[in-house]
């Protein structure tokens, strides 16, 4: 076997074991941390984020002028999103992890409003919990509050159109949205830290394989959690869901067809 290949495999194993030992809270660790990205990449993602945030702010403003009570609703829902991201969900591996709320937010508020809420949640995590960071806010927002929700939303809408059952649409939207967040993060890291041999793609694949270990089980847990949340909502918060549907157009889960409790 080629020596450098052996070396790489060795490093990869160190990485994975390292990640497992050091971070039981894998979801937090998977935000790109403060100071990790060089200045130009940090700035690049910040600039890339801005138009989406402006879009989100505009769309929320427009809706809020029509329905002033929605501002309070969004504020409370945002507080919930932050609390959710600090909740522990049991995962297959026996350890606990934290949901991202990407799928839930996208289905509830639509991808544009979710961008703004997601960004605020990331600011809170950075300042209050030292997860993620302010310099990496652009990159993290791009993966968690822009790409993730867009993917979730598209999957949810697409599957519903195809006539998939409600619970499956929600489950896949949440689980795949969660995974896509980390695929994006892998690309961001790969771009910023290309491998010495093999360049950007080799590095991307390296990061993705690390995430695969921790994120696939987490994505499944997040999918289940999101389905449960919608079950509860569809029974007890019909009125609020209707109000919220202003953000996403029609087609909110209204029937009681989720996974049986």
């Amino acid at each position, binding site marked *: 076997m080629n020596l450098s290949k052996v070396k790489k495999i060795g490093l990869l194993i160190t990485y994975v074991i390292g990640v497992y030992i050091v971070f039981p809270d894998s979801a937090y660790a998977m935000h790109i941390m403060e100071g990790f990205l*060089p200045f130009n990449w940090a700035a690049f993602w910040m600039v890339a984020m801005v138009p989406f945030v402006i879009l989100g702010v505009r769309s929320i403003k427009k809706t809020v002028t029509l329905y002033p009570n929605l501002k309070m609703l969004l504020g409370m829902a945002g507080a919930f999103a932050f609390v959710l991201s600090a909740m522990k969900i049991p*995962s297959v591996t026996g350890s606990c992890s934290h949901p991202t709320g990407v799928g839930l937010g996208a289905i509830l508020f639509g991808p544009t409003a979710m961008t703004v809420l997601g960004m*605020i949640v990331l600011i809170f995590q950075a*300042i209050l919990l030292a997860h993620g960071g302010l310099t990496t806010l652009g990159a993290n927002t791009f993966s968690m509050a822009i790409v993730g929700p867009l993917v979730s939303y598209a999957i949810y809408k697409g599957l519903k159109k195809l006539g998939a059952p409600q619970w499956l649409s929600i489950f896949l939207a949440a689980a795949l949205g969660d995974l896509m967040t980390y695929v994006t993060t892998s690309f961001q890291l790969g771009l910023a830290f290309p491998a*010495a041999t093999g360049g950007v793609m080799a590095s991307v694949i390296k990061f993705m394989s690390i995430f695969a270990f921790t994120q696939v089980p987490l994505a499944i847990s997040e999918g289940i959690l999101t389905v449960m949340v919608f079950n509860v909502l569809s029974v007890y918060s019909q009125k609020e869901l209707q109000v919220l549907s202003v953000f996403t157009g029609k087609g909110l889960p209204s029937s009681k067809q989720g996974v049986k*409790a």
Partner: protein
Amino acid sequence: MELAVLDKIAAADTPLHRWDGRVKTVLFLSAIIVSTVLNHWYLVAGLWLVALASFRTLNLTWRHLFIRLYIPFGIAWLVFLSLLFTNGSHALFVISLRQLNLTAYREGLQLGFLLVFRIMAAVTLGSILSFSTPMIEILETLRLCKVPDLIIDLAAMMYRYVFILTETGHNMRRAQLSRMGDNTSWLRQARDVGKVAGYVLTKSLERSIRIYKAMLSRGYNENSTGADFFTVPVSKTDWRIGLLGAASLTVLVVLNLML
């Protein structure tokens, strides 16, 4: 770290706490950015040392900082190892593990140090800011820095209710645990937590309606604005300290360009 703990720490009384929140927030945010701009590991290390020194003035145990640093440090040293053995051409030493030879490079060492110190400096600076400044002051400073009102309003409202929602979530989970909710499969536990999340969300949506009513009953209309958070101007001393800090940061950046 628990939010309530942080909230209490941020309300303590030390010189750094008393320093005007506006100047402090802007300066610390700039310092965090500067830490990613610097290209020489020793400059970043210097910045980190200064940050550690200012952490000491907060009268907190090192444990408080350590809790925040340990996850970033874990990743940082892995990155360090990876850079050390893959980056550069000037070999420093070789580690032999059976057939596997790992060569450490000088460039890799420097790059590794740079990255580790950057992460440590940036996280430390961010922690000091959050340890010494109530969240609401940081948010209101961002408002002064032209971050859209909507974002700040939403964020302030979120922060206001995060404590209550956390409490509700904890209570519900405790109720499950006291009925042996941890004595079952992970799948059922994941569902249980999902239900807690669902009810907390339901309750928060209901509360939002009650809050809206409370606002209406105090004359809320489409032109409603809140009162300014900052009611007194920044004192001269606080300005001076801020300027001093800004000057030092500038010196660091200039040094970085010259070296």
